[in-house]
């Protein structure tokens, strides 16, 4: 082994030097704007002048009937949007991964790529394409349903208050299902063969094997996917804006925090932008995401059993 052990370890300047660019850039474009947003939410116009108003903007947001109605509506819709993702995206992702990990399946690479491709497309393209597919005028959805005799099931989904948000959530699931699929696929592949063989010797096979052995082993991955989905959904904006416009129609049924923030902060049509109220909504979004992530980190992640092989 090394003969000379330095008593004073040399200062490792290179760590600071190599980290500096990332830290500087991240501070400049993420941390500073974040704090200035939080800061701005404490200001507001008083007699036409910008002044410190403490938590008044939050009071307006929660207790002024109109602001509160918009805010709770957007928050509720956001939770619904997230709920659809959780109940549809994760099971489908697991199912696809399970199918893909079957060694007897042919053309695995092709399916993997085909399902993953939508995740790299832009929201604008996805939104526009689905708007066309679902269009009652030129869409292929009515014709395809007609071909199997189910034409009566078709409705102008994006134009109905009850259906629009769920439809958009499903479009978003369609776009992003490739990510849970890939992560779970990787997790499934990393389960050692010995574990599976041991299960088989014990007579645990088929679906039972999946639920008793494989599923518990991929739970940490599903947890990570869930928190990523949570953060993504609560920051969502693009898809709604592209398909339904900033007024998130019909009748604000697709309005989520992102669209509410956009309308408030930048203004819309004749509505002037309101930087302070916009920052207030942005701050609430930040806090909601922060709370969600903390619940996950401290409530779930730390209790999750890690299996080491």
């Amino acid at each position, binding site marked *: 082994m090394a003969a000379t052990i330095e008593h004073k370890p040399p200062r490792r300047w290179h760590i600071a030097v190599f980290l500096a660019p990332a830290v500087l850039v991240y501070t400049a474009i993420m941390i500073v704007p974040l704090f200035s947003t939080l800061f701005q939410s404490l200001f507001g116009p008083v007699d036409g002048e910008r002044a410190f108003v403490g938590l008044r903007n939050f009071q307006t947001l929660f207790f002024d009937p109109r602001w509160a109605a918009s805010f709770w509506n957007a928050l509720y819709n956001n939770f619904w949007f997230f709920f659809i993702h959780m109940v549809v995206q994760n099971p489908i992702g697991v199912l696809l991964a399970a199918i893909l990990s079957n060694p007897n399946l042919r053309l695995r690479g092709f399916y993997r790529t085909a399902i993953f491709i939508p995740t790299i497309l832009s929201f604008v393209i996805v939104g526009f394409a689905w708007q066309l597919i679902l269009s009652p*005028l030129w869409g292929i959805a009515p014709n395809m349903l007609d071909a199997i005799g189910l034409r009566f099931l078709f409705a102008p989904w994006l134009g*109905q208050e009850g259906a629009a948000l769920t439809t958009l959530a499903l479009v978003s699931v369609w776009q992003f299902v490739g990510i849970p699929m890939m992560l779970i696929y990787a997790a499934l592949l990393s389960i050692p063969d010995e574990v599976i063989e041991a299960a088989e010797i014990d007579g645990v096979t088929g679906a039972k094997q999946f639920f008793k052995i494989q599923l518990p082993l991929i739970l940490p991955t599903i947890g990570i996917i869930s928190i990523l989905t949570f953060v993504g959904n609560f920051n969502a904006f693009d898809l709604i804006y592209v398909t339904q416009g900033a007024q998130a129609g019909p009748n604000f049924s697709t309005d989520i925090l992102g669209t509410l923030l956009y309308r408030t902060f930048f203004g819309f049509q004749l509505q002037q932008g309101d930087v302070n109220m916009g920052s207030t909504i942005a701050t609430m979004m930040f806090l909601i995401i922060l709370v969600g992530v903390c619940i996950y980190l401290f409530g779930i992640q730390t209790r999750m059993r890690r299996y080491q092989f």
Partner: protein
Amino acid sequence: MISKSKLLSGSAGVVLALAATPLLAQETTLVIESWRNDDLTIWQQTLIPAFEAAHPEINVEFQPTAPTEYNAALNAKLEAGSAGDIITCRPFDASLALFQEDHLADLTDLEGMANFSDVAKSAWSTDDGSQTFCVPMASVIHGFIYNADAFAELGLEEPTTEEEFFAVLDAIQEDGTYIPLAIGAVDQWEAASMGYHNIGPAYWAGEEGRQALIAGEAKFTDEEWVEPLEVLARWGEYAGEGYQAQTYPDSQNLFTLGRAAIFPAGSWEIALFEEQADFAMGAFPPPVPAEGDTCYISDHTDIGIGLNAASPNAEAGRTFLNWVASAEFAELYSNALPGFFALSNEPVTLENELANEFVSWRENCESTIRPTYQILSRGTPNLENDNWLHAANVLAGTETPADAAAAIQEGLDSWYTPGMYEE
């Protein structure tokens, strides 16, 4: 290997050459901000060359943004100091706010302003009319464009009253070849601007009703303001299957492809429709409620152009704006963009037949502007946006006209007291 001195002198030469070019040419470049990205070719091929021919020392660049993003993008650029020299102005409060924040220069003393009437300037003047900050460019007129071939085929005539209008729609519905009305509910402004604000003035007596609303003497819940919503609700039956999810471009395509017979329109459609439709088109003004009633049109001051107060090229900017105020520009612009009617006092000859049809209504009908634009859209909730929402709900059949009217009025009442902006 290139020697160091060679490299130095070479690059110095390049730098010198780059620095010298603008000095030699003595040119100023003006950048125009606009939401009219549809007009890019017209500016580049017609308007800018005409101006540059007369003023070779000034270069003009037209840099439009998408209409829905314009306000946000412009505000951000003005705050950051990176906006262009010339700013295309939305009517009323959006521009007034920019003026009050000192982003737009005062143009009251611009010589060209003499070419415009007070009404034309109203959309870009302070509430008391003492200061004007944008040169009025054009107004748009609402009405209905129809497929003349389809009308001839079905033996239909232009309707003049509400009753005749629905009779025509019934006849088209019965025949079944065409969707009677091309209108959708998903892009909410379509229901408000092409629906409510289009037919409404005939019920609320145009300017009279609009002023009464501002003065607080009329309310959206009054009969004359609810009636047009009731008419709008009936439109749903004629709008074709799935109109709840039909976008504005869908409506345009339905009409230009010859699948729908009547398009509730703004005159800005003319250029696009003439390019795309291969059938004869006609236009009629909004039908009046009953035979013999005065007809009203929404002749909406829609587009103006002003000067960025922070522009380093203010002198060139004023030269350009004076040219925009001239009869030459009015003639070029109205003909290049049929359907955008110049607001200048100078008479303009229009070559486009459909555009002439629209503008001819000014002779027999009373003109008014959209009632939600002046003063009433200053607060939150925003009246215009509220109006979009509820008009779309009524058209889609998810809200009754009475409920919609009550909701619109409630939103307005929550922040507006008549007279609050008068000094």
